[in-house]
């Protein structure tokens, strides 16, 4: 095929968008809404996952140390805790820090009373241990209990189990919703492109009668679908960005809520703009181009 022929076919595809503007607009709208629906579901899913992870991060094992433990034993315990495969972070919390934290929340009168007891601080030294996998929290707790110098271990294993269940349910629901939406959108898009191509079946038929090859007929449809797909992706991206930023501000203004879920749990659009842009453009282009090209197949069998 000559370069000029390729140029002609590309030009034909581009001009067809305008020549068949009503159907192009219908396809554009359907694709835009579909991309936004799926995109928002995915974004909601990853944010909910992030929130659950944020809550999980606050979930830690408290290792209470023996009262008469030496500094060397404290240090060696730190090393042992760090060596555990499921442990992501270990921080030491001395009995003095614990005392200060308790006193901090008291009234002036209570503080005055407490200063007499400061020298007999009954609180223990502790390690706060964060785990990487909540499902293994119980096993990690049992391992810590065996270490020398450990008086007792407090771990919210039932809460951890609940969180794991919540996370699994959230993942299942969001994946199901996204999958269902993708299916619904594909059916709608496929019907729209079929209608669009059906309206031009005579055109395809004429092309076949004058001896055009299937590729010659398909290329302009492919280009046309691709242009509509890219336009829809850009439109959907702009709208998603706008709506997402608005929602982000609304959620971040809810201070109490943010305290519960963690202020960094929600993704700002700037953090995810690159993968979102790539996914929107790739999905729009692929669905637009392939949807239209596949739909022409039925009318090529002349």
């Amino acid at each position: 095929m000559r370069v000029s022929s390729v140029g002609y076919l590309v030009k034909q595809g581009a001009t067809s968008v305008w020549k068949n503007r009503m159907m192009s607009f219908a396809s554009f709208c359907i694709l835009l809404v579909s991309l936004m629906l799926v995109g928002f579901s995915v974004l909601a899913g990853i944010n909910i996952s992030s929130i659950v992870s944020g809550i999980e991060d606050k979930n830690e094992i408290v290792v209470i140390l023996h009262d008469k433990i030496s500094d060397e034993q404290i240090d060696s315990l730190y090393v042992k805790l760090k060596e555990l495969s499921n442990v992501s972070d270990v921080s030491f919390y001395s009995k003095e820090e614990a005392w200060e934290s308790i006193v901090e929340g008291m009234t002036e009168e209570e503080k005055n009373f407490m200063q007499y007891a400061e020298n007999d601080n009954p609180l223990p030294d502790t390690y706060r241990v964060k785990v990487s996998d909540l499902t293994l929290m119980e096993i990690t707790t049992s391992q810590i209990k065996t270490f020398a110098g450990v008086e007792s271990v407090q771990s919210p294993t039932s809460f951890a189990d609940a969180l794991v269940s919540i996370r699994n349910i959230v993942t299942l629901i969001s994946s199901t919703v996204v999958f269902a939406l993708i299916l619904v959108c594909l059916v709608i898009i496929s019907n729209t492109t079929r209608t669009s191509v059906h309206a031009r079946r005579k055109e395809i038929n004429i092309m076949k009668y004058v001896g055009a090859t299937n590729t010659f007929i398909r290329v302009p449809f492919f280009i046309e679908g691709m242009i509509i797909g890219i336009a829809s992706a850009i439109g959907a991206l702009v709208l998603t960005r706008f709506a997402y930023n608005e929602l982000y501000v609304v959620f971040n203004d809810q201070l109490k809520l943010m305290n519960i879920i963690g202020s960094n749990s929600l993704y700002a659009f700037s953090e995810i703009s690159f993968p979102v842009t790539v996914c929107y453009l790739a999905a729009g282009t692929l669905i637009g181009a392939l949807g239209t090209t596949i739909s022409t197949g039925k009318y090529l069998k002349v």
Partner: protein
Amino acid sequence: MVEFKDVSVTYSSGVDALNKINLKINDGDFAFVVGSNGAGKSTLIKLILKEIDATEGTVIANGYNLKKIRRSKISKLRRTIGVVFQDFRLIPTMTVYENIAFVLRVIDAPKKYIKTRVPYALELVGLSDKMKAYPDQLSGGEQQRVALARALVNDPKLIIADEPTGNIDPELSYDIVELLKCINECGTTILMVTHEHNLVRYFGGRVINLDGGKIVFDEVVGGSNESK
């Protein structure tokens, strides 16, 4: 050259459209195919264009044995045949120029050739001034002449005209057949399917009459215009 050897076509509905047809149309022939509805005229055309397959027998068109032709070669076969339909079948979103140029683009013709050949074809059918018009801006007769220009632009060996005068004024019908006769004089084989016996009587030539899927008459008859 088109040849039918013992060709029969039975549709899936059980209708016998053609029954043991034997027919040979030589290069440079001009033949009218006449017959009532359901006689098998359209089936004959569909077979030549490889739109359908013969149930029995062999069809040879422009050197291609249509029984053995590969699917990928069908487009090549169709490039050797120009087709004029009753309903014109022009692409509505393309101008007159683009409709005709499309046929040349399909065969990968150079740009320069397209630029000279399309105006030439339009000049032949007397529509040089309608190059930029869209099909819906033309009358039925003009659209049919565009379809004719499209059929002849790539210099095909055979032009099939399927009821080309069916959708135009009777007085313009004679112009269309006149044009086909002119094209035939340059060596192109013409196969014209028609219902209009007046035209056949006027122009004369080879007349193939189909009835119930069989050829009941195949002879050269004199036209009334020849006696004038």
